[in-house]
């Protein structure tokens, strides 16, 4: 038997845990070994002291001191239950707080739908703009539309005396023929009328300034016709929205201007006829015939006006 086993048996003997045979064997060992006997005696004295510890008692009754607390605690469980029930509404409040998140989701969805819709609308508008632009370009290319845009601007001077205008040409080169004799007629022409555009659209805004120079006294006018400054052909104006805007502007003032122009044209025609009869006479019958042929071909008074305006334009440039 080892010392550890003997030590355990001594401990168990103090607790009364050894069987009678084990207790006898331990006593035999202790009698043989004085050191073991000393240890056993020390342990037994410790155990005796522990067994003789005084049974301390509290100085006052702890139960009596806590009874008021216990009685109040007996009432508190119900109160606590009430408190717990009161806590539940806070949980309901939390549930309600979760509802806004759902509404936020719906709001987000609606925002997305709105964005998609707005982009679709924007795309449709863009497509529409492009289509309208293409149509406007086509209309500009169409010669009939050119005539329609030019008519309101064609204004003749009230007294125009001169040979019949030649055939209108699309060539933007200056017209050097006729018109030397009529600087006086150009005096009466208002500056606004100088903005006349030729059917070929060869005129820019640059020729607008010359009429002011032309307004010089006609006495000095030597029939010197300078070649018209070649005007570069305008590139195709942007189809949209400029064309449309111009049209709209014309529409605003077109009625009043057209009426005035028509009256002016009628007067000028009458004067032209009279002047042709009086001044040119029979010598220019051939030319008149040509003009009449042209008129027969065109059957359009506006064309004559355009021709004359073009002639006049050539004259205006001549200083």
């Amino acid at each position, binding site marked *: 038997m080892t010392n550890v086993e003997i030590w355990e048996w001594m401990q168990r003997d103090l607790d009364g845990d050894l069987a009678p045979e084990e207790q006898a064997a331990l006593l035999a060992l202790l009698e043989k070994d004085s050191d073991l006997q000393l240890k056993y005696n020390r*342990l037994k004295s*410790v155990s005796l002291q522990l067994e003789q510890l005084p049974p301390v*008692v*509290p100085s006052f009754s702890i139960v009596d001191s806590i009874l008021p607390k216990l009685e109040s605690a*007996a009432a508190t469980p119900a109160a606590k239950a009430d408190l717990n029930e009161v806590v539940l509404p806070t949980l309901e409040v939390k549930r309600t707080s979760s509802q806004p998140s759902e509404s936020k989701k719906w709001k987000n969805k609606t925002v997305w739908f709105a964005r998609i819709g707005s982009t679709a609308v924007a795309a449709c508008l863009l497509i529409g703009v492009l289509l309208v632009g293409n149509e406007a370009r086509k209309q500009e290319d169409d010669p009939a539309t050119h005539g329609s845009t030019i008519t309101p601007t064609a204004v003749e001077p009230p007294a125009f005396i001169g040979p019949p205008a030649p055939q209108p040409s699309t060539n933007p080169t200056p017209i050097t023929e006729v018109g030397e004799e009529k600087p006086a007629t150009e005096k009466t022409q208002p500056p606004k009328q100088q903005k006349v555009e030729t059917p070929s659209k060869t005129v820019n805004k640059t020729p607008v300034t010359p009429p002011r120079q032309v307004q010089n006294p006609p006495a000095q006018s030597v029939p010197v016709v300078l070649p018209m400054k070649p005007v570069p052909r305008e590139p195709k104006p942007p189809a949209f929205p400029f064309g449309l805007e111009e049209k709209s502007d014309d529409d605003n003032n077109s009625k009043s201007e057209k009426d005035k122009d028509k009256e002016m044209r009628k007067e000028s025609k009458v004067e032209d006829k009279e002047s042709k009869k009086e001044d040119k006479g029979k010598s220019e019958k051939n030319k008149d015939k040509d003009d009449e042929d042209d008129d027969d071909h065109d059957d359009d008074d506006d064309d004559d006006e355009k021709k004359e305006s073009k002639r006049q334009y050539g004259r205006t440039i001549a200083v």
Partner: protein
Amino acid sequence: MQEAELIRKAQSGDHEALVQLLRSIENSVYRSAYYILGNEQDALDASQEVLIRIYRKLDTYQEKAKFTTWVQRIVSNVCMDKFRTKKETVSIDEHELIIPDRNNVEDEILLTGLSNDIQEAIGRLPKQYRLVVVLRYLEDFSYQEIAETLDLPLNTVKSYLFRARQQLQELLYDYQKGGIG
């Protein structure tokens, strides 16, 4: 009235039986708390808390275990909580307050005619050893009951008890020689 009958009546809502049951365990609760914690004030506080817990949780007690075992389990738990809270809030002032309490306890022990050597030696034991010694010698629990109370294996309880006695023997021997303290 026997303990089991008191327990049944208290569990059924008999307030008088409950108070009587608490009075029957009051001294043992305080004794254990006193020897575990080592001072009167902590023992009183711990005893009050233990009795209140028993009052509130008596309906959870089942007769599978001994009632005293169940009560001493609560005592050991409360005392261990006290140890933890004391460790977290150690300060010089509290340490100074403990000393006079201990002196009072020593006076009380001297009045009963017992030496304070063993008391001081118990205070030097590890907490688990202290619990086992108190349960073994003051509550007269068996190894099995100590194991159930402290929720420890039986061999662990024996080991703790044997080592606690060995340490106490060495401490008391050194004290007798004048080397303790």
